[in-house]
């Protein structure tokens, strides 16, 4: 049962056809991350305009289905959002995975909520949480926000 929770349709779809792959045009922020245990890699590209809105957002990377889907969903969700909102979503997302809380932001569309929630199955697979969170941490890193240690055990 749980496996189905982990590998939901939405996830498989994003993993097989990741959105926003490649370097986005005119990016002015980027950051890389890497999980030395499994070899997952992600590189985030981000165009933050003068009003602090994420105008463009994309990624390059390789890894498991969870990490690819997570990066893909992330780019879809955050594109067009402003900075403070971005941080709030990321924080909500990370909490969902590590503390099993729900996404509470109400300005996301139902569709977006459903998509993000598809990653909540990872909660039950502690060794995979990093796969799902790496890209999100990397956005913070691209924005020069404090991040946890990558390459470390997860907490």
């Amino acid at each position: 049962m749980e496996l189905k929770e982990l590998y939901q349709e939405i996830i498989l779809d994003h993993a097989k056809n990741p959105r926003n792959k490649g370097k986005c045009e005119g990016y002015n922020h980027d950051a890389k991350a890497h999980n030395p245990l499994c070899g997952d890699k992600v590189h985030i590209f981000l165009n933050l305009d003068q009003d602090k809105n994420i105008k463009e957002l994309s990624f390059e990377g390789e890894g498991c289905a969870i990490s690819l889907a997570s990066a893909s969903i992330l780019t879809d969700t955050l594109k067009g959002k402003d900075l403070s909102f971005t941080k709030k979503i990321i924080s909500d997302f990370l909490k969902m995975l590590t503390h099993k809380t729900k996404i509470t932001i109400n300005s996301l569309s139902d569709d977006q909520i459903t998509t993000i929630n598809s990653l909540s199955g990872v909660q039950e697979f502690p060794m995979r949480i990093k796969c799902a969170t790496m890209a999100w941490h990397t956005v913070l890193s691209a924005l020069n926000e404090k991040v946890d240690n990558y390459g470390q055990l997860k907490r």
Partner: protein
Amino acid sequence: MDIKKIKSEFPIFKQKINGKPLVYLDSANSSQKPQIVINRMANFYETEFSNVGRSVHTLAVKATNRFEDSRDKVKNYINAKHREEIVFTKGATESINLIASSYGEKFISKGDEILTTELEHHSNYIPWHFLRQKKGAKIKFAPVNERGEVEIDEIKRLINSKTKIIAITHISNVTGAIMPIKKIVDLAREKDIPVLVDGTQGAPHLKIDMEELGCDFYAISCHKMYGPNGLGILFAKKKWLDVLPPYQGGGGMISEVLKDNVIFANSPTRFEAGTMQTAEVVAFSESIRFIENLGIKNIQTHENEILEYGIEKLRKNNSINLIGNPKVRGSVICFTMKGVHPHDIATILDEDGVAIRAGHHCCQILHDKLGISATARASIGVYNSKDDIDILCKAIDNCKKVFKI
């Protein structure tokens, strides 16, 4: 061999994983432990424990004797010439670090070369990398061929007058290639170059005989030999131990301590600073006994049978790409699968109670060369049977279902 009976000696198999029997195919990572080894550790703490080599009371004498008995046991098992050639360490990683540091300090200078291969585990590369940084030495990598082996000619080609040590694995923990250590030692001897063998994967699966192999250093991790974690062995030829400087400093490894100088004890004590892992050392005797009772040749025959059966079955699976195809091989099968990342394979297999490992297996250089960032690895121990392979293959098929491919 009666695998059912052997398996029943390992308590870990009593439990279910996700409601299924445990199929443990991660022994190259760490082997499970037989009950007698676990019991010996507990029992030692319960009835014989004391610090070793320091006090003269009854418990201390007993503990010291047990500890030194284990050294004899190891000496005999690996057919070393002298008991002083057996040094207990924290693991193969520490054994290799010890030699890289101690041999390197004394014998390696700027421009000298360390000859190793593209197959090595990080434990047999990073200690040499430190030397490269500290001393300005060079590391030469004998290339791996498309079968996942390193050819002896490549090693021959790279040996030159600057080569100061050859550091090479006994069995690759990714391709399973068994290296022709004896031939390499013969080559090296012509030029008086010492050979360090990373025996971490060799020792659990092959008959290892130091007199026959002739290598100068051999590193072992006891936890992959049905023994306790946190314990390793360094075999080093007496001629080296007598000249190498100590590695860590502390209690027990000294002869005389003055304010302006320290004189060190001889080997093996010189290399065993501080309080040792007494219970682990003592219990490792039981691991050797376990292996001896079954016979390492029988273990090898059994494991090879399972290995070949596994390779055969996986080769028939169109979605599977086997990594490496060495002529002489042992104990591990690495593979990738079209459309499913190794990490996902490992998670899906776990659902069926099948434990494998996914990643670069601490061999990033090899994976870079192969052009892949990760592989899935099934590795064999004495407790595995053909049934395990069948369950593995079924679980692999399930990956396709989960991924709808």
